[in-house]
Every structure is written in C-alpha cells, then in structure tokens.
C-alpha cells in the first residue's frame, strides 16, 4: 500500500478544481462567467444558468437543464397504464393532478371510453384546483424572488386550504394519483362542495391581498415592467404556452380552444391576455387566471351533475393498438402526452410534452443585455417547475 503524501493529495484536489473550473466556467477577457445553479436559491430546484457578465450586465447566457432528469418517458414503458399516473404526478409537483389528466384522456381516447359527466366535472374541478395550488405559490414566490419575503407566507397559508380540499377528495396533498381511465377513484366526500366554495372566496381574498401588496407596489412595477419583453412572434416561435404566451398578447388557451374531455366549455369564464409581453404582464395574467379559476370552480360546484363516477372499464386494462396525443392547458402551460400503444398492458412509448421545458427555451434569447437582478425577475416571471423541465 502506498501512502499518499499531502502533496499528492493537494495536486489531486488542484486538478479536480481545475477540471471543475474548465467545465463550469470559461473565463475570458470579455467578462466573468457567473454560474447560477445547479445549487442556487433562485432556481428552485437544480436548474443551471451560465451567464457571461460584463459588470452586472449579461452578455450571453445559456440554460443547462437535466440535473434532475428522472427518465419518466422510459419508465412508463415498463409500467401498466394505471401505474403510470403515479409517476407522472411528479412532473409538475405543485399541480400534480393536472399532470394525470392529459395522460388519462389520451388513454381513454385510445380505448374509446368516455368518463361519465359527474367524473368529468369533478376532474375539471380538481384540474382547476391543481392550478390554484400551483399558481398561488407562484404569486407568493414572486415576492421572494424580488426580495419581499412576506407574500410567500401568505401564499403558503392560503394554499394550505386548497391542499386540504384536494386531500379530502383524493387522500393525497401533493400527489393525488386519483384519475383513472374511465372516471375517478372515488366520489366527493360529504360537505366538500360548501367547504370548497369557502376556500375559493378565501383564495380570491388572497389575490386581492397580493394585488395590493405586490402588484400595486412601485418597486415591483419598476422591477418587472419592460423587463424580459417577449414579442408575440418570438413567443410563438419558441413554443411558449400558457400564461407566458397569453401575456404576449396571443389569445390561445387549450381550455377553450383544445376541445378535450374537460368541461371548461360549460362554464362562463374569460381568457386573460396582456399586450405588453413583459414580466409584469406574465405575473398579471397569472393573477387574473387564479381569480378566473376560483370562479370556474364555484360554477362547477353549483352545477355538479349526479350519476356514476366510473364508466364501464375492464378489470385489466389493455389499451388497443394505436397512437393518441392529448394536450391540456396545465398550470404551467400546454402539457401533452403522445401515447403509442401496441395493445399491451403498458404503453409502448410515451412522449411527454411539458410546458416548462419549452418555456425556458426562450431564456437565452431573453437574458441578453439584462442586469443580474433581471435574470431572477425573468426566471420568476417565466415560472417553471423543475420537475416539469427535467421529466
């Protein structure tokens, strides 16, 4: 056994550090490369952004995703259809139920089953509740990213009630795993509808609070207005979706235009757009959508049809051979599943189109020429969930 001298040890450490430096940052005469992430408070997860800085100004920036890639597309191939929902719950972990819906709808489309009306209505309610659970946290987190801690606690406080409602139906606060091919696992518990309406009015109160606390603040406006402007054609060419696209003035919402198996066409609601395309517009559109979602849930609770919550499906689910793609308007944007079935118990191949992955593709284009604090504003306003980037 040869003893390793301290000198050798140091040389090794030196070499490792040099390697790390070469990999992590290429220092040049033009400026300094700032490596934001994978461990950084602003990336809420393990997103890495490398930005070449000239002083505080970004000359060039790139996004390096993939630090949390879990291989869900591959994993779905070795699972049966009902098992897949457990996995895909974890894609956008703040609005978990919404992840299940497009997959189940795609499977139903292949099997030519339609869920009974009551199941569809409850699905839509839970889908919108997932949106609330997600976007309410966004509105709070926005403050943290811009330096105001207090809104985050208000968000957690009020989001708790939404999670309670989701939990009392599904049994899961974070990962409901509740949607089934042909309907839902269970019916609503007693008294749930009245509680839900109370929670919805509470969330509307939260929206008002945030509107006065953040959106009415001069510093907030100074930080977000005109920062990270995405023109409509750029937004479309980068494949943005959801509030990011609508904030650029593109009036496109899959809940209205998609024609999928959810009941959004039976309620009275409005698609909010904003002409500016800047960070403020993105945040503002999300705030309005939160309000709209609470109103939608109220209406759905009022007109909830009776009847079964499960269609007739065989005990062992075999999806006939074929291909289907279903896309829905999830909290983060358009989320779709392309399922290729060969008639087995599990899918042959699943392609997951998640919103955040496309949404952050515009980041390198956006970050050119902005200041370091604006990087954070832009990332916060584009709003991604790391699990939604790295499936």
């Amino acid at each position: 056994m040869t003893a390793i001298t301290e000198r050798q040890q140091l040389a090794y450490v030196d070499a490792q550090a040099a390697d790390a430096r070469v990999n992590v940052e290429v220092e040049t005469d033009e400026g300094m490369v700032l490596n934001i992430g994978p461990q950084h408070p602003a990336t809420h997860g393990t997103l890495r952004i490398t930005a070449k800085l000239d002083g505080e100004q970004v000359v060039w920036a790139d996004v390096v995703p993939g630090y949390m890639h879990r291989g869900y597309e591959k994993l779905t191939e070795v699972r049966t259809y009902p098992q897949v929902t457990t996995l895909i719950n974890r894609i956008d972990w703040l609005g978990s139920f919404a992840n299940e819906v497009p997959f189940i709808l795609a499977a139903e489309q292949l099997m030519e089953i339609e869920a009974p009306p009551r199941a569809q209505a409850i699905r839509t309610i839970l889908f919108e509740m997932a949106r609330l659970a997600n976007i309410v946290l966004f509105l709070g987190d926005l403050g943290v990213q811009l330096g105001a801690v207090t809104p985050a606690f208000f968000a957690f406080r009020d989001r708790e009630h939404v999670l309670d409602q989701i939990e009392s139906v599904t049994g899961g606060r974070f990962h409901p795993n509740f949607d089934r091919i042909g309907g839902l696992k269970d019916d609503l518990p007693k008294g749930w509808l009245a509680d839900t309406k109370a929670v919805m009015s509470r969330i509307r109160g939260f929206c008002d609070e945030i509107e006065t606390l953040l959106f009415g603040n001069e510093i907030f406006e100074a930080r977000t207005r005109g920062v990270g402007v995405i023109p409509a054609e750029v937004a479309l060419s980068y494949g943005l979706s959801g509030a990011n696209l609508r904030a650029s003035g593109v009036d496109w919402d899959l809940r209205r235009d998609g024609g999928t198996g959810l009941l959004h066409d039976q309620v009275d609601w409005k698609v909010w757009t904003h002409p500016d395309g800047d960070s403020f517009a993105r945040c503002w559109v999300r705030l309005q959508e939160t309000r709209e979602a609470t109103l939608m849930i109220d209406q759905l609770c009022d007109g909830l049809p009776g009847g079964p919550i499960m269609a007739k499906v065989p005990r062992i689910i075999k999806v006939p051979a074929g291909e289907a793609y279903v896309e829905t308007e999830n909290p983060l944007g358009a989320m779709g599943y392309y399922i290729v079935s060969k008639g087995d118990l599990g899918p042959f191949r699943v392609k997951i189109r998640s919103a955040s992955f496309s949404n952050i593709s515009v980041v390198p284009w956006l970050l050119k020429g902005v200041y370091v604090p604006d990087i954070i504003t832009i990332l916060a306003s584009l709003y991604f969930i790391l699990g939604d980037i790295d499936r």
Partner: protein
Amino acid sequence: MSAMTLAIELAWWQQTVLRSVGMLVAVLIPAGTLVYVFLFKMMSFMQSRLGPMEAGPYGSMQLLAEVGKWIQKEDIVPWRADRKLFAMAPYIVVASVFLVLAAVPFGPDAWFTDLDVGIFYVLAVASISVIGILIAGWSSANKYSLLGGLRAAGQLIAYELPMVLAVVGVVIQAGTLNLQQIVAAQHEGEIFGFGGIGNPFIFTQLIGFFIFVVAMQAELAQAPFDMPIAESELVSGYMTEYSGMRFLLFFIAEFATAGAFAAVAATLFLGGWAVPGLPLDAGYMNVVGPIVVLVKIMLVSFLVFWVRFTYPRFREDQLQQLAWKVLIPLSLVNILATMALKVAF
C-alpha cells in the same frame, strides 16, 4: 454639562471601565432586542406565523440558542480565499459599530466620548464598514461575494451623501456638531413659541428625517436596498462564504448597526436621551436617558424593519437613481430652506 453630576464621585479609571462595559452593553442590547422583537417576532406576526416559541417564554431565549449554535459551527474558510483578509473582514464591520456608538450620548454623563465634532465623526466612521464588506467580498474567492461586495460599496457610497446632507439641516438648526449639544438644543428649543415638548427636530426637519431614514435603510442594506445580500440573486452576497462565528459577527454587526444608526437618528431628530419637562443635568437622567434612547431606537427601527419586511428589492441602477436624482436634490433643497428659515427667524 459638567463631567460630575453623579451622586458618587468616580475616579477616572472607574469611569473608563464603566464606559467600556457600557459600550459592549450599548452595542449588544439594542442588537439583541432588535433581532428578537423585529426579526423574530414582528416579522413572524406580519407573515401570519408565531416565530420561535420553544426557547424560553415566547421564544425569548432563541437568540442565545442561535448564538450557541453559531459558536459551535465549523469555521470554514474557502480553499482559494485570502485567509488573513477573510478573517479580518467581520471584525472591521463590527468595529465600525463600536466607533459609531462611541459618540452617541445616553445621558448627561452617560457618554463614551464627548466630541465637539460628534456628528461629523459619526458619519465618517460609519463608512468604515464598507471597507470590511468590500474585503469580505473580495477575499472570499466567490463570484457572488464579489458582486455583493461591489454592490455594497457602490450603494453605501451613494447613500452616504444624502445622509450627510440630511444631517446638515439639523446642524444648521442646532448650530453645533456636538451631539450632546444637539440634544440640549432640542430640549431647550421651541416650536414657533411653544416650548412644552422642546423642539425635536423631526417636526422642523421632517424632510431631513425622511431622507435620513431612507439613507439609513440603504446603509444598513435592508430591503428594499438589500442588493448586497440579495438572497434570491447572490445567494447571500458578501456573506456567502462565511459560517459559524464569523457569520455571527456579520449578523451582530447588521443589527447592531441598525441600533447604532437608529440611536443617531433618535439623537438628531427625536430629542435624544432628554425627556421634555425633566431637567437636563439631573443625575438620574444617566439612568433614565439610556432607557429613553432605547425606546427611541425601537421606534426608528420599527420603521426600518416594517419597510424591510414589506417591500421588494430595487435593482442596482434604480437604487442609484433614487440616491442621485431624488434624495440628494431633495436634501439640498432642505438645506437651503433651513438656511433661509434660520436667517428669517
């Protein structure tokens, strides 16, 4: 104010010992109170939570627990850091707090040094902390620290100016730079003939007070001016690489500086240690005075922390614009107005 109005005569060395101990108390008591009352409790209540509740009644011993934790922690120095500078930086920052408080009077005899150029000295030594912060940012061998340190330097220098200019109004009105005499001037003054509460300069120098508090907020690097720390951008700014005892020193310095600046603001604008109606040279004012100052420190800090917990952060360029385009012209106008009124009345 003669040196000896205490009931007991003290030898010079006894006074010196008392003043040295008093200095530690004057730095640590406001800092501890601010941390507990504002950072732990007020912040929690504003954010609809309780804050620390376990250590002591209502969590009042939490700070001791925290200090114990920090002392135990490993003292990590980054491999590529400049060790000597890295170790020195927190001490420089803490030292500046002591230097600031040294000139602040707490009673007719409860002062540490009674300088004739008191406020000038205070404003001069207050900027020493910038050097410590810059050293911390540079020596950490971390890009976030570097950005934070440079931001701090730019910010603290920009806000030094409105602060000084805001104080000039008070100095013109009081006609002295000596803090003890500024207190006396406020105690004996009259507001347009009404002398019932003396003349705390907050009434006549309201704009000056406003500018002073804003500049103070920036000097303390509290939100909305917390870019040097900016935890969502720069992780923790110049403090990123500090841990254990050295972080504790920065932490103490942050809140002790808040206390020291609040004490200066209380002395300049709120009448200092004097109580309207009570004589200035009574011996018991040496006991009442510090309590009065502490109460006024809490009042001023309440403003500072209230804003801190509510507002989002400015961007660096917006902060500079606020300093150079708004606060400095405003304070110059304030000085001109004070001068005109001083001559007129």
